């Protein structure tokens, strides 16, 4: 059964993994996006994810359904978190399973690439030096292209604009 959720609770990878897999499946793939301690070469202390929660849930469901079509099965589960996350915490978990591995890799990749393209979620990196900055993002397809990523960059915190 296709499962898609945008929520503020801690993501349990085992729980997401347990939502996929059936006797018909020979391949299961779990992708975890994790908050890492650096961005390019800049030390990061944590990350805040904001979400347009209601819409993000709908978009994520659509992406999961599209992935299921590519996968050829309904075994797709994806959970995206929002709120304040520490280094090492899971921001997104994507589990898929299918009879053959080829489709599993493709569908998993499809979900992560599409959600980066379309999911109304934003992340602000907190740097070790005290500055926080919204991460440059993507203009979603089907919208005006005048929202230049660079135009919305903004820095707050002790370091001021960076």
């Amino acid at each position, binding site marked *: 059964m296709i499962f898609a959720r945008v929520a503020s609770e801690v993501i349990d990878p085992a729980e997401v993994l347990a939502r996929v897999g059936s006797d018909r499946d020979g391949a299961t793939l779990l992708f975890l996006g994790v908050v890492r301690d650096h961005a390019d070469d800049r030390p990061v202390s944590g990350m805040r994810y904001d979400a347009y929660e209601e819409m993000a849930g709908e978009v994520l469901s659509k992406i999961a359904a599209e992935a299921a079509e590519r996968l050829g099965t309904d075994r797709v589960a994806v959970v995206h978190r929002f709120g304040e996350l520490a280094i090492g915490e899971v921001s997104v978990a994507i589990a898929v399973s299918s009879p053959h591995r080829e489709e599993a890799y493709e569908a998993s990749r499809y979900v992560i690439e599409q959600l980066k393209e379309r999911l*109304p979620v934003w992340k602000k990196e907190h740097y070790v030096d005290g500055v926080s900055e*919204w991460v440059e993002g993507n203009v*979603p397809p*089907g*919208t005006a292209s005048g*929202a230049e990523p660079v135009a*919305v*960059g903004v820095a707050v915190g002790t370091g001021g604009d960076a």
Partner: protein
Amino acid sequence: MSVPVHTLFFAAYRDRLGLSELTVELAQGATVADLVAELRGRGSPFDILPEQPAVAVNRTYAMLDEPLGAGDEVAFIPPVAGG
């Protein structure tokens, strides 16, 4: 007769405007472009909004010529960065 539209601001827009939502009265037949012009016309801080912003109308991505009706929810969507 004016048309009330519910606007939402997220992430960098929210930070820079200092507000997360606003109800705007538009003329009948107004489009997203008219809403943008109305807001940007207010000057600072609304002039930080792009002339051609990405928006979602009632939770679906939309272009600037999308017509708006009473009670529509228009979200200004900075470039997205999930994952």
